[in-house]
């Protein structure tokens, strides 16, 4: 049985797994970008309260392996609180938190390190706060943050594989299930790799387009 045969025979299972993976990604990416950017900006403006909180949480989430947090929230936490939560929601929550604090720290750091002289130049040119933010800070920050943010989001896509270990029916778990039936690991995991390539290709193309369009080497001669 070739890779193509497997894709043809099990395309419905693969597609349902891919759908779950993409749904997970949608939740994780949306939460990460919306709440992470907000948290980063708030953290930069309130360095002693929100800033420290963002740094501490980001350190915690990067130091503790995602899988440990996922297992902790899925097994002991639910036993302690005597609740049963759909693994999809547990995985969404865990990976979203990881992404939120990852993005938050990235944004906080960039805002804090933003060269003050560009703001000073805006002020003496008579620009108001709104113009300084929209015409100077945001465009420069966007260009600075773009590569790091895209790498982090691709990393989060890969982290969705962990959700299979708490029985979320995402594409990796589907592949494992098919493999346990027909035992064709090389072909099945090649097919899986092709799915990931197909998902990552548009992201990489978008990253390349945005990089070409917006980021340049800003260092001066």
């Amino acid at each position: 049985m070739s890779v193509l045969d497997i894709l043809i025979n099990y395309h419905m299972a693969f597609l349902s797994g891919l759908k779950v993976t993409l749904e997970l990604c949608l939740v994780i990416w949306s939460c990460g970008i919306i709440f992470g950017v907000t948290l980063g900006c708030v953290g930069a403006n309130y360095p002693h309260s929100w800033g420290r909180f963002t740094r501490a949480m980001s350190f915690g989430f990067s130091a503790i392996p995602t899988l440990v947090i996922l297992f902790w929230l899925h097994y002991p936490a639910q036993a302690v609180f005597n609740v049963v939560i759909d693994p999809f929601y547990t995985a969404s929550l865990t990976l979203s938190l990881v992404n939120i604090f990852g993005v938050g720290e990235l944004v906080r750091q960039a805002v804090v390190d933003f060269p003050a002289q560009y703001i000073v130049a805006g002020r003496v040119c008579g620009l108001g706060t709104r113009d300084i933010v929209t015409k100077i800070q945001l465009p420069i920050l966007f260009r600075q943050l773009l590569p790091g943010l895209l790498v982090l989001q691709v990393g989060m896509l890969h982290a969705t594989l962990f959700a299979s270990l708490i029985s979320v029916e995402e594409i990796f778990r589907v592949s494992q299930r098919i493999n346990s039936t027909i035992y064709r690991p090389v072909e099945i995991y090649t097919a899986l790799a092709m799915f990931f390539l197909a998902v990552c290709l548009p992201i990489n193309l978008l990253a390349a387009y945005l990089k070409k369009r917006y980021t340049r080497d800003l260092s001066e001669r």
Partner: protein
Amino acid sequence: MLEARNLTFSYSGKPVFHNINISVKPGGITVLIGPSGTGKTTLLRCLALLEQPQGGEIAVDDQVFGYPWPAGKAFNPPWPRLTAVFQSLFLWPHLTLRENILMPVRRYKKDNVMDGEVEALIEAFDMGEYIDNFPNEASLGQRQRVALARALMLGPHYLLLDEITSALDVEQIAKILSYLKGLRGKNIGIFIITHLLGFARHAADQVVFMANGEIAEQGGPDILRNPQTERLGQFLSVIAAAS
């Protein structure tokens, strides 16, 4: 008139300058000279209302800023009526040089007026060849001209300049300084930190010599020919020997 009265500034408890009195008249050129590290740039930043001195006051026409500035009191500096060009220039790296000049002025001027003025400045400062490049694609001398053009486009009443000709060749310096002299006719008051004593001799209405955090001597450009203090005499002889 732009005026500093009894201005005192210290940084982390260390005094930078003390009881400085200085004035820039509309249509006049005040040149500040002095050795490095004597607080010239800090004084310019104070005059630009970017730093908060510990004492004294700064008057920009009828608007007076008294220090120490009361906590919680609204601070509304008259930018860009009062504007500055710094030694480090601070051009925005994501905009072309042309956009650097046009972006801040868009809210004040109509496109057709703006375009005419920009083209005149491009010609006056020989910026045609590189005006559509980004700042990192231009040399320091080219960026200096753009930073000055950006400030001039804002139609300031007072223009504060910190060593803005340091990377220009002799020909360009002559062009820019002659342009600055021409601004007198437009009633723009200019405060300039420079090491170009020739410019101070020929164009300045007032020359201020700053040393060790205080004004050691000030007066007309003739103080550069006949210094009244030993300190200025020493400084001038060092400059003469170096050049």
